[in-house]
Every structure is written in structure tokens, then in C-alpha cells.
């Protein structure tokens, strides 16, 4: 009898995890989306196929779709090239000023969206610093040279390398110094070591961040909208319009299904590649990697020049954003500074308003709760999936958890709202709309795919021998998980938590439909203060809020990722500090990973 059961069904931990996952997925991933799809496609008692004809007949829709796919494919290459380079420059090679380089590259983690585009515009736009330089030296260069496909790829490439910086760094930490050294002693060149020893270890994480990059390209909104020009518009803005128009939602859903097919194809390819390899270092007792000196002086010089050139590319836009946040709307829109442009008025408006603090509290609470719930839950789920990699159960769980990636955010949120406006048996007959909880649920749901993907990569990087050894020594499943596996994936888990937390702070798309009237988060507050439909032109306020968010994001990264929380605790309890002063945390963020 027992033999007929699949392996996972014999582990109590697996069965419990699976039961909870199944219930959550059914209630919050599957049913709401089915509800919405039924609503948009089942018109007048039959299946409506209107959307497909409308889309195929539209030249604009088809070319936008082509552009989105092209952008996703291009970014999958360019982001990996730049991303791997910045990780090598800050973590693998012994370059001068690695810490400064890391901090500079990390600026891409703390801002995004329309303000990021504005930052690049200050450098490359028609009145940008570089453009003025170029047009003076080379008069034939047109003022609006920075437009279209190359411009979009350029900006999005540098904007998307943050995942590399965090997650590739984490897997780089698992590379064994002794393996690298013995390869060198056996005569392998630095290049061969890099190609044959270092890069293969990084592959699962590279696959995971490639999926993220690909999806980021497919869903690109702000950058192509501003920099794409007439010839390079993408599909996301159109989808957004359709998702917000009740009678056109079938078009948004149809587009989502098309994008889902591309995403699934990408996942299938990467899952196939992922299954083929061994990704952990084979050393029995591993030693931490020390930065490698580059032997060839020419290569060394070239590395330094490229690394510092990239630093300038990364740092200029956010630096200008901070600078311009102290100026008025006119200076921002023209990109010019005069002595009288500077003002503190914007900051006063944003910070001194009596009601201004509450949205911060609400957003920070929601983000913290959702980020913790999603990481705690998925640690168990990913453990389940990676323990039984070849079972059909794992495949199903994996694909179901990717649903939030393929549905446009607006539609998923509407699905939740529509479903839970009436009592639902799956949540004990309760009505969830109008409660404080439904927004937290939506946040958790939205962060599942990203968290799952990166955690899975981290679990795949664990040497299975470790687990076997624990098991042979008599450790229970839960004990092995808690004391052996968990410490190994913790760096990645912490980085994911920090990123999830930051990304939810200024959310608007989810909150707009689900926020409780008394607990409205920051995103809604910011949008109200800065939208184009207000009477005063508030584009300067957008910058101020972005800088405030950049500060919060930096603090979060420092607390969770840079060991800041531990340092604060040590300061607060001097006795413990003395006892543990021997194992103080290193301060160099490049060494944190």
C-alpha cells in the first residue's frame, strides 16, 4: 500500500506544507483569477473571441508586442553581461575601492520608475549634461539623440542589475577558495578558472535573475513610455489602459495570456537547463573566497577603467535626482540650475503636513508584515519543491505559484476584490473586501513568484551531501531544515526580504482598489499629491518623495543586508557586545554577501 504513495506523501512536514500551499493557492491565486477571466471572456452565455480578432487586426498592438518581446530578449543578454561584470568587479577581483564601487552600483536598488527615467534624462536628455557636451564637441549630433530602442535598452540595463548585485554576490560567497587555488596550481589561467569554476557555480542564480530580467522587459512601462519615441512603444501602457476600462478587459486578459505563453516558454527552457547541472562546490571543507589579484597589468588597468566608468554611469542619475529635489518644477523640467532655483519648500510640503506621517506608518507596517509572511511561507514551500524535484506535485506547485507574474497586477487585484466582496466558503464564509487584511493578502500574493524563484536558486546551490550527512547522523527533517539548510539560504532570504519590503513601500496599483479607508498607504498619498490631474503642477514633489523613499530603502538594505540591525542591538546591550566582540561583523558591504 505504502509503496503506491509518492515519496513526499510519507513526510509529515511535506504533507502539511502542501496542504497549506494548496489552500492558499486555491483561495488567493486560482479562484480570483478564474472569476475575473470568466467575467471578461464569458459574454452573453458564450465564450467571447472578440479580443483575439481585435488584437490581431491592430498593427499598433502587434508592433508593441514585438517590441516588448524584443526588449525582454535583449535585456536578458545585456543585463547579464553588465550584472556579472559588476559582481566580478566588486566581489571576485581585487580592485581598488571595491567598497565604493559596490555602493555606487547598489544605487540601482533604491529607485526606479518615472523618477529614474528623469534622472537619466538629466544626463542624456535633450538638455542633459552629456548632450550639451556632445553637441558642443560634435555639432552634428541632434539634441534628441537619446531616444528609441538603444536608449530604452541602455537605461533598463543599468536599472535592472540590482538583482545580480545582491543574489549573485550571495552565490559567489559559496565558491570555495581551495577549489580556485588548486585549479590555479594545476595550471589553469585566471580566465579558465572564471569560466570553468566560478561561473558554473553561479548558474542557478543567473537563470533565476534572467527570468526576472525577461519579465521586467516584457512588462516595461515607464522607460519605453518616455524614451521609446514613436518607434519603440511597448505593450504595457496599452494593457494598463485596457485593464482599467471595464469593457476592454478581455483585451488586457488576452494580452496577459500571450505574455504568459512567452513567460512559460522562458521558464521551461531555464528549468530544463537548471535540471542538467551540478551547482554546488564539491569541497568537503570549504574556505571563504578571497578577492583575486589580476595578474596581467593591462587586463588589470582595463578592468579598473571599465569599473569606474560604470560607477559614473550608475551614480550620476541618482545624484542629480537628489540635487534637483531641492529645486522648483521649472528647473526640473528644463534641467537647468540657477542660484535661485534652490528651495526647501517641497520638503516642507512633503514632511510637515500633519497628516503626512500616517501613510508612512501604514506602508511600513504592510510592507514589513507582507515581506515576512512571504519569506517564511516560501522557505517551507521551496524546501518541499527542491526536496522532491522530479515529482509531478513539485511541477504543479511551481507553475501555480507563478500565476501572479503572468496576470497584470490590476486584473489580479480586481479578481480578489470581485471574489471577496461576497462571502466565500474557501475563507470560512467571510467577506474580505473592506477589511484591513485583504491588502496584506494581495501584497503577499504579488511577491510570491519573485521570492520563490530566487529562493529556489539558493536551495539548488546547497550541497546535498550536507543534508545526507545530517540525516545519517539522525537529525529529523525539521531539525535538518532549521539547523542545516536555513543558515545556508539565509543571505539570499534576507536580501529578498529587503527588496520585497522596499518594493511595496510606494505601491499604488494594489492599494488603489484594496486599501481600507482608514489605512491608506503611501502610494495613494504620493499619487494624490503628484498626479497630473491636480491643480498645482507637483512634479517637484515627485522628486522629494522619491528621495525620501531612497532614504528608507537604503536604511532597509543596511538593516537587513548590511548587518545594521545586529550592530544596533550590540550597541543597545553592551554586555553581549563585549562577549561577542571577537566575531564582529565585517563592515565592507562587498563582504556581506
Amino acid at each position: 500500500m505504502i509503496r503506491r504513495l509518492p515519496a513526499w506523501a510519507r513526510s509529515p512536514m511535506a504533507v502539511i506544507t502542501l496542504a497549506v500551499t494548496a489552500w492558499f493557492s486555491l483561495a488567493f491565486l486560482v479562484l480570483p483569477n478564474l472569476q475575473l477571466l470568466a467575467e471578461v471572456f464569458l459574454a452573453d452565455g458564450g465564450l467571447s473571441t472578440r479580443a483575439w480578432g481585435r488584437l490581431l487586426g491592430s498593427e499598433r498592438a502587434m508592433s508593441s508586442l514585438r517590441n516588448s518581446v524584443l526588449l525582454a530578449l535583449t535585456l536578458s543578454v545585456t543585463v547579464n553581461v553588465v550584472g556579472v561584470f559588476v559582481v566580478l568587479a566588486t566581489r571576485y577581483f581585487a580592485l581598488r575601492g571595491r567598497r565604493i564601487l559596490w555602493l555606487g552600483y547598489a544605487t540601482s536598488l533604491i529607485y526606479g520608475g518615472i523618477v529614474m527615467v528623469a534622472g537619466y534624462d538629466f544626463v542624456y536628455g535633450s538638455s542633459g549634461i552629456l548632450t550639451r557636451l556632445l553637441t558642443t564637441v560634435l555639432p552634428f549630433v541632434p539634441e534628441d539623440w537619446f531616444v528609441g530602442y538603444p536608449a530604452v535598452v541602455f537605461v533598463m540595463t543599468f536599472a535592472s542589475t540590482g538583482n545580480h548585485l545582491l543574489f549573485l554576490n550571495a552565490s559567489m560567497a559559496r565558491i570555495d577558495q581551495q577549489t580556485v587555488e588548486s585549479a590555479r596550481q594545476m595550471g589553469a589561467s585566471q580566465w579558465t578558472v572564471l569560466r570553468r569554476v566560478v561561473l558554473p557555480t553561479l548558474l542557478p542564480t543567473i537563470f533565476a535573475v534572467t527570468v526576472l530580467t525577461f519579465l521586467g522587459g516584457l512588462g516595461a512601462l515607464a522607460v519605453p513610455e518616455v524614451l521609446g519615441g514613436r518607434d519603440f512603444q511597448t505593450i504595457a501602457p496599452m494593457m494598463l489602459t485596457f485593464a482599467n476600462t471595464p469593457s476592454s478587459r478581455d483585451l488586457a486578459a488576452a494580452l496577459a495570456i500571450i505574455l504568459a505563453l512567452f513567460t512559460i516558454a522562458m521558464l521551461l527552457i531555464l528549468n530544463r537547463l537548471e535540471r542538467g547541472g551540478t551547482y554546488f562546490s564539491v569541497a568537503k571543507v570549504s574556505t571563504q573566497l578571497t578577492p583575486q589579484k589580476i595578474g596581467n597589468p593591462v587586463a588589470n588597468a582595463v578592468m579598473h577603467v571599465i569599473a569606474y566608468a560604470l560607477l559614473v554611469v550608475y551614480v550620476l542619475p541618482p545624484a542629480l535626482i537628489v540635487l534637483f529635489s531641492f529645486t522648483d518644477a521649472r528647473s526640473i523640467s528644463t534641467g537647468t540650475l540657477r542660484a535661485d532655483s534652490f528651495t526647501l519648500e517641497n520638503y516642507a510640503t512633503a514632511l510637515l503636513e500633519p497628516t503626512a506621517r500616517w501613510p508612512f506608518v501604514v506602508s511600513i507596517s504592510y510592507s514589513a508584515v507582507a515581506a515576512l509572511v512571504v519569506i517564511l511561507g516560501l522557505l517551507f514551500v521551496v524546501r518541499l519543491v527542491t526536496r522532491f524535484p522530479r515529482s509531478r506535485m513539485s511541477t504543479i506547485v511551481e507553475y501555480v505559484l507563478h500565476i501572479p507574474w503572468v496576470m497584470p497586477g490590476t486584473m489580479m487585484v480586481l479578481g480578489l476584490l470581485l471574489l471577496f466582496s461576497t462571502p466565500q466558503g474557501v475563507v470560512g464564509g467571510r467577506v474580505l473586501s473592506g477589511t484591513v487584511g485583504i491588502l496584506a493578502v494581495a501584497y503577499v500574493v504579488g511577491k510570491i513568484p519573485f521570492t520563490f524563484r530566487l529562493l529556489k536558486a539558493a536551495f539548488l546551490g546547497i550541497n546535498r551531501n550536507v543534508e545526507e550527512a545530517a540525516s545519517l547522523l539522525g537529525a529529523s527533517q525539521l531539525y535538518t531544515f532549521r539547523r542545516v539548510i536555513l543558515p545556508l539560504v539565509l543571505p539570499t532570504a534576507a536580501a529578498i526580504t529587503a527588496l520585497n519590503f522596499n518594493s511595496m513601500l510606494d505601491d499604488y496599483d494594489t492599494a488603489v482598489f484594496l486599501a481600507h479607508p482608514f489605512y491608506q498607504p503611501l502610494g495613494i498619498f504620493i499619487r494624490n499629491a503628484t498626479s497630473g490631474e491636480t491643480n498645482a503642477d507637483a512634479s517637484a514633489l515627485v522628486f522629494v518623495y522619491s528621495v525620501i523613499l531612497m532614504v528608507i530603502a537604503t536604511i532597509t538594505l543596511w538593516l537587513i543586508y548590511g548587518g545594521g540591525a545586529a550592530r544596533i542591538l550590540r550597541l543597545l546591550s553592551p554586555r553581549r557586545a563585549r562577549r561577542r566582540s571577537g566575531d564582529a561583523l565585517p563592515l565592507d558591504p562587498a563582504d556581506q554577501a
Partner: protein
Amino acid sequence: MITRRSLLASVPAVAGLGALAACTPPQSGSGDGDSETLTIYSNSVSDGRGEWLQEKAAEAGFTLQFVDLGGGDIQNRLLAEAANPIADVVFGLNNVYFEKLRAAEVLEAYSPSWSGEVDASLGDGEQFWPIVREPIMLITNDEVFPGGEGAPADWPELWTVPEFEGRYEVPTALGGATTQMVLSGILARFRDDAGEHGISADGWAQIGEFFAKGSPAVEGTDLFARMAEGEVDMGQMWLAGKFSREEEYGITTTAISPEIGVPYAVQHVAKVAGTKNAEAAEAFIDWFGGAELQAAWSNEFFTAPTNEVALQDADQDAVELTDSFTPQDIDWTFVAENLDGWIEKIELDVLG
């Protein structure tokens, strides 16, 4: 290395932030039951209008909580919440949105105490009632067209007169209320019940020209910023927006006044069907649309009230300027039925 210790250490930090959340929101009133607080959905409470209204309402005995979103978002949220409404009152949206809400049976009929003081035909005379009206205009930069001289006399000249090609801003995102008003004002001239979405083939050709010959709006850059830079010379704007932006950018503009008239955005107020505070909601509507408050609102925020009794105490400049335009004769029920189809067609087939 990130150690377990450092991660565990961050838990109290986060928990501390969570503890902050335990304090009560600033506007939740007494806290024992929300029935005392009215939840109001509106797109007209930004720029300090909400805070002002909250204060005045408190004096009159109302506790208000706003959900401040764009017109389209409010409509979508109300539609999705129909089975379990959270809002008590909705105000600020224009006819198009209210017509759609009425068709979806989201609103409940209520005749305010001031219903005799307004032109009921501006609304539907049953569920939603007018409070403020505002012209949606084509404005031109005075530096290029001093006092409007040489400027187009009506929207169609933009794409039929070669000099204006590329000099006027056209919207790229079609979800905004002002944009939809402008499109309605142009398309409604070409009504043809046999045509696609009720518009003649010529109408579709004209709107195609409008977009093809305009300069697409730049996300994140205001029309006035582009006019100040000389990138474009004209574009769409609403009355109050024109004045605040002229000050901000130090340029002056003139609104053109076509013979056919301009679309008026009329803001309305209505009670949400299924509200748990029906009595308070009705009392609020009576107070909010009444002459006294509407006159005060006008003086504070430069609007033209629809309440005729409020007119004498209202901001006379705002009223005069609003009255200086002819209202374009637009069948808003027809627009509300077709607008979504228009937007879809423009997105798919018209934009280049």
C-alpha cells in the same frame, strides 16, 4: 556574512515598526464603531481641498474619511465593490463616470434639499446632482499667439491648418478625465448611429489626423513646462489648472472659445447604494451641496458652483470666466455608452 543572529536582530526592528502601526489612524474618529464616520470617494479632494472640507464638516458635525483617487479608479473600485459597498458618498466625478455608475446600479436615488436650486438637467435628476462646473479648454501660449491672435479658432484647425502641425500637445494616456472630455468634445461632432461606435468614418479619420499631427505628451513633464521650453504652443487644460500653472511657470496663456462651445466637466455628488450610513450620507449631501458651503468652496478653490443661490457669494472671477464660454451641446448618455469603445479603438487603430 549574514548570520542568523543579524537576521534575528532585524526582527525586533521590524516589530518595533509594527508597534507604531498599533496607534490609531489620525482620522478614525471616536474609534467605537465606524458608523459615525462617513467614507467618501472623490477625485476632488487633492491640493488641500480635502483637509479644508474635513474641517468645515467637523464644525457641521460630520466626521469624514476620504478615499482620494483618480476618476477612473473610483469608478472601477465602486463597480467591483458593488456587492459590499464601502463608500457612503461619492463626489467630484463628471457626467460620463456617473452615467456608467448609474447604469451599473451602484448609486441610490436621493433628492437633496437643494435640488430646486440647481439645474437638474445637468445631472440625471434622480441619483446624481451637480455641484461644480468647469470648462475644458484649448489654451495657447501668449508668447507665440499674443492675446490669442493667430491661434486656432477651434480644435479641428489644429490638424487642418499646416502651421499648427506638431505645435500642439496630444495625450498619450487616454485614461484621464480631461483627455476623455476633449476626445468626447471632438468625436461627438461626428455622431452617426450607423458608424463604428456611433461615429462616422469621417469622424474617425479626423481623430486620426488629430493624433498624427500633434506632439505626444511626455509622461512626467507638464504641458506648461513644454510650452515654457518652446516645444509646443498649445494643449488641453481645465480652468483652475490654467491659473495655478501660469504662476508656476511664469507664462501667460489664452483659452480659445470656439463657436460650437467647449465641453463642460460638471462634477456631481451621489449617495452610494447599500451604504450603512444612509441618514448621515443624506445629511452630508444636503449640507455639502447647499448654497453656504458651495459659495465658501468657490472662494477657496476658484470654482463656479451650480447652486444658483450660491452664485452671489461665490468667487465672481471664477463664475465670470466659467460663463465666458458657451457650453458645447453634448449628449452625455451617448458618450457614456460609447466612450470605452472609442478609447479602445483609438488605442488599437488610431495611435501610431
